[in-house]
């Protein structure tokens, strides 16, 4: 992970804004895709088991159809599955620039698991479509792929959830500590439920021959798939709000804001739309209802990514301000460096001293008048024979004159003190 840290450029606020937008966008594409991949793989393997007694029956056909629902094809898996994960890891590294946080390294561990999951599942699909003579191997490959995906995604989602929980960062030392929290578990369940929900509505949208569904033949395969898709969607759509509220309840207070709750109720409204659409499918057997259910569920994914975005914004408020300040400091240093090329070194010290004086001292001190502290024209000359004493005082001020409030300690660096002292002495000599 060291190499990542070294290769990351210091972000500017505009840069960070763009990255956050990009993050929302890629996760919005990534989550529904992964949901369909995982959901359809699980359903397909279950159907393989159910249909193992009767090859060529409804169940085996359903298993085959489902294995084709998500393209685990190389390009889809690469661009929708792997690339967004890598991008998300890089973005989180940028957002946490110089924070010393290592928790999100676990996102990287998720990658090989997900990759292995995709490989297993693509073999599973190939074996399914060429009617392999070895069903045992095929099922094991399917199960293995699912286990890899579940494990990889648990790590990935756990790091995403821990992202909004800075309080726990210093204490997470191994993957078990990363995963074991109600917040992570609620997030994982939320993802699994939405995965099966969107798989169900994906069946309604992509796998059905609606002409066959609407024209009565009662035992047709399409009719079976319709009831399966509708039932699956309805069941998980009903479960989703429960998990969602669970997730909200376990989210750290420091990440909550009013928008989260408004977005959540919007998500529940979308789930209501999806639920009614599925009911419409069962009742009237018409395709538009299936399309509506699918769109509503995709929008639910969008709201969940938005919730994620807002919680992150709130949790990282202070860190963002620090990053912004760092960026400004860099810009200033860059400018000074530019100017410095022309200026003489001695003058530069003076410029720095004057700037520091303006920033820090001038609020309380003037050379001629009493402000909060005494006029410097009166007090600095006392130190003319004891410059070290003046430096020591600036490093750790003590109360000298009972008529004035105590001067605060300003946490100055040695060289800053030097610059200020040089400036003070220079000014005092000028004024004499």
């Amino acid at each position: 992970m060291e190499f990542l840290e070294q290769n990351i450029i210091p972000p500017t606020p505009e840069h960070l804004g763009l990255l956050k937008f990009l993050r929302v966008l890629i996760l919005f594409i990534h989550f529904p895709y992964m949901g369909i991949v995982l959901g359809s793989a699980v359903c397909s393997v279950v159907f393989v088991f159910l249909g193992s007694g009767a090859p060529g029956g409804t169940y085996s056909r359903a298993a085959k159809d489902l294995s084709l629902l998500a393209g685990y094809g190389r390009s889809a898996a690469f661009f929708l599955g792997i690339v967004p994960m890598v991008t998300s890891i890089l973005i989180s590294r940028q957002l946490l620039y110089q924070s010393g946080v290592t928790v999100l390294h676990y996102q990287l561990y998720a990658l090989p698991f997900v990759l292995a999951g995709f490989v297993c599942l693509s073999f599973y699909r190939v074996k399914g479509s060429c009617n392999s003579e070895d069903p045992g191997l095929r099922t094991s490959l399917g199960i293995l792929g699912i286990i890899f995906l579940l494990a990889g995604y648990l790590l990935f989602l756990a790091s995403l959830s821990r992202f909004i929980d800075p309080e726990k960062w210093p204490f997470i030392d191994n993957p078990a500590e990363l995963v074991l929290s109600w917040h992570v578990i609620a997030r994982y369940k939320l993802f699994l439920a939405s995965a099966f929900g969107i798989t169900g509505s994906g069946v309604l949208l992509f796998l059905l021959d609606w002409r066959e569904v609407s024209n009565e033949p009662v035992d047709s395969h399409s009719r079976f798939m319709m009831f399966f898709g509708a039932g699956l969607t309805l069941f998980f759509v009903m479960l989703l709000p429960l998990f969602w509220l669970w997730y909200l309840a376990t989210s750290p207070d420091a990440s909550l804001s009013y928008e989260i709750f408004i977005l959540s109720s919007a998500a529940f409204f979308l789930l209501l739309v999806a639920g009614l659409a599925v009911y419409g499918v069962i009742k009237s057997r018409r395709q538009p209802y299936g399309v509506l259910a699918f769109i509503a569920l995709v929008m639910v994914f969008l709201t969940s990514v938005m919730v994620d975005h807002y919680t992150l914004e709130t949790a990282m408020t202070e860190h963002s301000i620090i990053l912004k300040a760092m960026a400004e400091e860099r810009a200033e240093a860059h400018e000074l460096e530019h100017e410095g090329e022309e200026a003489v070194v001695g003058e530069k010290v003076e410029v720095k001293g004057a700037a520091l004086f303006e920033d820090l001292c001038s609020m309380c001190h003037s050379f001629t008048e009493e402000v909060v502290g005494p006029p410097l024209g009166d007090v600095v000359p006392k130190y003319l024979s004891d410059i070290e004493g003046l430096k020591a005082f600036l490093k750790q001020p003590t109360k000298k004159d009972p008529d004035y409030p105590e001067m605060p300690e300003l946490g100055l660096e040695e060289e800053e003190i030097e610059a200020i002292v040089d400036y003070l002495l220079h000014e005092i000599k000028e004024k004499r």
Partner: protein
Amino acid sequence: MLVKKLIPFAITLYFGIFIAVALAMGYNWKLYKQTPEQPIAFSHRIHVSQIGLQCDFCHRYADKSVTAGVPSVQKCMSCHEAIATERPEIKKLHRYWQDQEPIPWNRVHRLRERKYVYFTHKRHIKAQVECTTCHGEVGVMDRVRKVRSLEMGWCVTCHRSKSAPTDCLICHK
């Protein structure tokens, strides 16, 4: 037949309840958990990040006592008698000073079961725990917010990781 007609209503009702619960949670959050407004919009960012004051310049008792202490109005006035006197928030401060009244700050960091917990700042400062460990980056906050839960599990995790005592009686006297 009637039951079949009722199904869409049942679905609507089911999700309607969740929508209501989410909105109620939001309202509850706004009422009780949102960062409180303060009588004077004091900015830690200006005082710490810009001017460079150290925490203990105002919170005098952090290394000496159970509580860190809120500065007296007099402390604020020692500088603000002369600085930024034209700003509306400083004028508010002057009013408190003239009326000789304390500023009714709203507490942000409160232990939930404080009746049963003994916590002292002094010990933690002596053990060189940074202020930011428990209070977050207050130095860049305009309005202070609570960024740590201050709950027992969190206290114990930190005690464990720093090999500080985890005996019950350490905190529950």
